[in-house]
């Protein structure tokens, strides 16, 4: 059995875990991150993409608001290329009138230093012509739109450069707990590679539980108690970028009151429903209906616009004691030192929080690690931009600009999202990719209106050619950081995503020692099913017509339902196969508490 020794082991490849591995590596700790699937497969890959200004929490949670605005200003520097500087409006719609919330909001912003200025409604409507003309007041704050996929890769990239080792598709089977002079110590973890089945033992001086909604389950392996209240939030992506500015309703935070422009689409969310398990998540018809109804209040005609996709994520809301109810449980970060809480040494849990504060959560965590390991090493993440940040913010047209500038029209694999062949090849070379879904997170493959109709076949064809030529480096699932340069942060960036650089991998290709599940037919089936999973809750109108065209292509033309190897499955096939088709309409259940 393979054994590894490290100082810090981080479990979980979401924003929190990637932040911790980055911070720990920058402070010179030998660090390993394990994630059971791809980076951002959990909640980080399923959020709005809102870079909070803090405005949302200005009234209800001033401390949280203050954290947000501080981190907002830091991330704009450290992760500039993962952020679009959209700005944000808090608007008072006719539904929101009649109380003094706007005054409290302004006072709250002022109190914690969130730049906030009221702008004339006419100016807001000039900037956002689709906005409800009946809004009465508009406040502008420095909200932004963030690409959580890119940010995780950029963060991890920075960690790798600093020596960290990232092991995706490695699942923790067991935490190793030893008794030492009457005290319990967590000394390591038994993990297995979900692709190859290989078992690995990782010994670590300290283990960080950053498993998000799954952190209760992980803590239990150490005999610790972490109560997470998984709160499902459903989001709906519209096919068009109906607004260019983040739009918030100026009222107490509630369901469906944020509309975030994200690349070529916009995303409305969310609901807030306590669920027994973080996975799998069904999207109920009332949730979709509610998002459309709420969207209508921000942008009249919203519910008639073409809907692209729906998904749900779970907020890992931490609670000390059960109080019931979802949105009122704290969203503050929770750093749990289990040596203090339960006398379990060498084990920390970091949970709660929000994407905007992931760096701060990591800082607090690694500060505590320093204490435990008896060393003083200052945090430098706030002043150390990750590689790629020098390119500055992305903007909605950056890909189109590059395609036109460099005349890459013939190289487009995904016309919806303007993914070029080179971007795809680079992504495969530079990131461990098991499925096309992993590449979707890297380069936005299949995220557009046709939801994989054209690019699925093309991507599979290209990957198959790379595989035949030995250019798809599967060994990267077992990579060690020092053998290659990581450049994932550049995948979506204006300057670097179009340069052909397929020699960056170690070139070993597929070897007999690294059994893989590479099979083009499986890739095709898995990705089409994965895309189907997210469209079925919102499949009607033009999107339904699009889906039928995809059937014409994949059934009538390709006959992929009668390809060989139909018995093959990947470690995520079952996840994709979860039934997301709408059930009968039932009204929203009443909230507890």
């Amino acid at each position, binding site marked *: 059995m393979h054994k590894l020794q490290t100082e810090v082991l981080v479990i979980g490849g979401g924003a929190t875990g990637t932040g911790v591995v980055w911070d720990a590596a920058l402070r010179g700790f030998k660090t390993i991150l394990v994630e059971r699937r791809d980076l951002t497969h959990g909640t980080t890959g399923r959020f709005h993409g809102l870079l909070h200004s803090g405005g949302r929490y200005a009234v209800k949670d001033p401390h949280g608001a203050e954290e947000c605005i501080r981190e907002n200003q830091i991330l704009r520097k450290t992760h500039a290329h993962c952020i679009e500087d959209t700005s944000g409006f808090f608007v008072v719609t006719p539904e929101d009138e009649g109380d003094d919330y706007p005054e409290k909001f302004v006072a709250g912003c002022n109190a914690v230093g969130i730049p906030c200025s009221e702008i004339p409604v006419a100016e807001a409507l000039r900037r956002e012509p689709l906005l409800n003309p009946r809004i009465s007041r508009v406040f502008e704050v420095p909200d932004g739109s963030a690409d959580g996929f890119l940010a995780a890769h950029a963060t991890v990239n920075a960690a790798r450069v600093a020596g960290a080792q990232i092991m995706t598709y490695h699942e923790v089977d067991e935490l190793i707990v030893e008794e030492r002079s009457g005290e319990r110590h967590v000394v390591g973890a038994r993990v297995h590679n979900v692709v190859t089945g290989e078992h690995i033992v990782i010994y670590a001086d300290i283990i960080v539980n950053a498993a998000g909604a799954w952190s209760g389950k992980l803590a239990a392996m150490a005999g610790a108690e972490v109560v997470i209240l998984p709160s499902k939030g459903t989001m709906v992506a519209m096919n068009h970028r109906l607004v260019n500015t983040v739009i918030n309703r100026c009222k107490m935070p509630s369901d469906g009151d944020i509309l975030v422009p994200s690349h070529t689409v916009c995303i409305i969310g969310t609901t807030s429903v306590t669920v027994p398990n973080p996975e799998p998540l069904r999207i109920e018809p009332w949730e979709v209906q509610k998002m459309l109804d709420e969207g209508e209040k921000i942008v009249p005609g919203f519910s008639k616009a073409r809907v692209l996709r729906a998904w749900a994520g779970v907020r890992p809301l931490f609670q000390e004691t059960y109080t019931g109810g979802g949105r009122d449980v704290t969203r503050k970060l929770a750093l749990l030192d289990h040596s203090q809480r339960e006398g379990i040494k060498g084990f920390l849990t970091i949970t709660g929080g929000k994407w905007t504060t992931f760096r701060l959560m990591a800082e607090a965590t690694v500060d505590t690690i320093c204490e435990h390991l008896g060393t003083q090493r200052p945090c430098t993440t706030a002043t150390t931009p990750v590689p790629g940040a020098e390119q500055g913010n992305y903007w909605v047209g950056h890909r189109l600009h590059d395609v036109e500038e460099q005349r890459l029209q013939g190289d487009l694999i995904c016309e919806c999202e303007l993914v070029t062949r080179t971007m795809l090849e680079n992504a495969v070379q530079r990131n461990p990719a098991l499925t096309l879904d992993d590449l979707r997170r890297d380069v936005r493959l299949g995220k557009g209106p046709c939801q994989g109709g054209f690019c699925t076949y*093309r991507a*599979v064809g290209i990957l198959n050619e790379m595989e035949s030529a030995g250019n798809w480096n599967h060994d990267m699932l077992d990579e060690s950081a020092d053998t290659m340069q990581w450049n994932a942060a550049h995948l979506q960036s204006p300057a670097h995503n179009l340069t052909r650089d397929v020699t960056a991998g170690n070139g070993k290709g597929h070897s007999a020692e690294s059994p893989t599940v590479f099979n083009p037919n499986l890739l095709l089936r898995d990705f089409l099913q994965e895309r189907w999973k997210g469209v079925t809750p919102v499949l009607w109108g033009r999107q339904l017509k699009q889906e039928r065209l995809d059937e*014409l292509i994949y059934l009538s033309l390709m006959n*992929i339902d*009668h390809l060989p190897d139909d018995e093959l499955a990947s470690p995520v096939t079952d996840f994709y196969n979860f039934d997301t088709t709408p059930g009968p309409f039932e009204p929203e259940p009443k909230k507890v508490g």
Partner: protein
Amino acid sequence: MLDLVVIGAGLSGLMAAYTAAQSGLTVRVINKGLGSMHWGAGTVDVLGYAPDAPEKPVQHPFTALANLVVQYPDHPYGLLSSDEIRAGLASFVALTEEIGLPYRGSAESDQNLFLPSPAGAARPVYLAPEAQSAGDLSRSEPMLIVGFKGMRDFFPDLIVQNLAKQGHQARSAFLPLSLVTDRIDANTVHLAEALDDLERRTRLGHELKKLVKIGERIGLPAILGMNDHSVVIADLERLSGVPVFEIPTLPPSVPGIRLYKALRSRLLELGVRIEAGMEVVSAEMTARHNGTPGSIQSVISATSARPYKHRAHNYLLATGGILGGGFNSDHTGHVWETIFDLPLTVPQDRSMWFASGFLSPTGHPIFHGGVVVNDVFQPVDGGKLIFSNLWVAGNILANADPILERSLEGSAIVTGIAAGKAIANL
């Protein structure tokens, strides 16, 4: 006043227009966009997979059809006798000969051809353009599948590997795309048009000759000429010395566009006007009343300039269901026929629209529904005629999922012809 206005320029609409015009009717075709011909393989599928045995391809389509209509009497094929279906397909074959784009079937009657798909699966097809028929997987010559480096809609390795897994002998080879085009943004249509050029196809022919071994046949993406297709194929076969065949590509479908263009020219010769870009937005009609069917007085199309009123004695709706845009739907679960609001058998409830998997062998119920017609293809509601002068044909018909069962073109052709005949026989 016209005898017939056909709404929709897919295969069913054009075949209906052709049939009616040949019988001497004055016909106009108006269409919003293009039919599924432009997106598919350009072949004619009659029945590839029977609904009760979706995993096994149909070998003998007419035998299977006979069973199908016994099992599912409401199936659109059930509106026609086996002889009518055969005759319809035969007249389509004759028409393709006439327009210089001959379609071929298996040498044996009542036998599906099996042709390689762009993914390397075996497609059960009843008729194929001559250029695809040499890909017949029952033939023994090994295949050399040739692609173009950088072409994004065709992947020879994928085809070859999957064909090999199914026991077919095939290998792949690549040529530079610059052999065919200088464009940086070439799609399949551009490539096909480029090969209409004598010099380019001659160069290609010489390169193929260098690649091929004696006894092989060459499979290429379906880009072998647009307007001079048959000459391009002949030249490539002569220069390479072996049979050459096309494998369909991702859309746009060059074989489909060739068929559309050829049918369109023939219709123009017959005096049928085809008015593209005209979406029908409303209709003047009277509803069924006191046991008397309603009737259509006109359909009104939107153009960039002004609304346009089309009047005819008869109207044929061939707008192609959900795929063609003949049906629309919304988030409340409502599905409707967009012009005449004809009753549909589609469940008006989103929770009943889909099976759980994209590739569910049962298909999705929403795509199985459509317009119910009587035996002369006139829409009925509870058995009662809705409009005295409205007919429907093609993918809009209820009780079949033509994409799932691979009957899309066959069903469009035979129902289009049958509806055209019914109108001509009035």
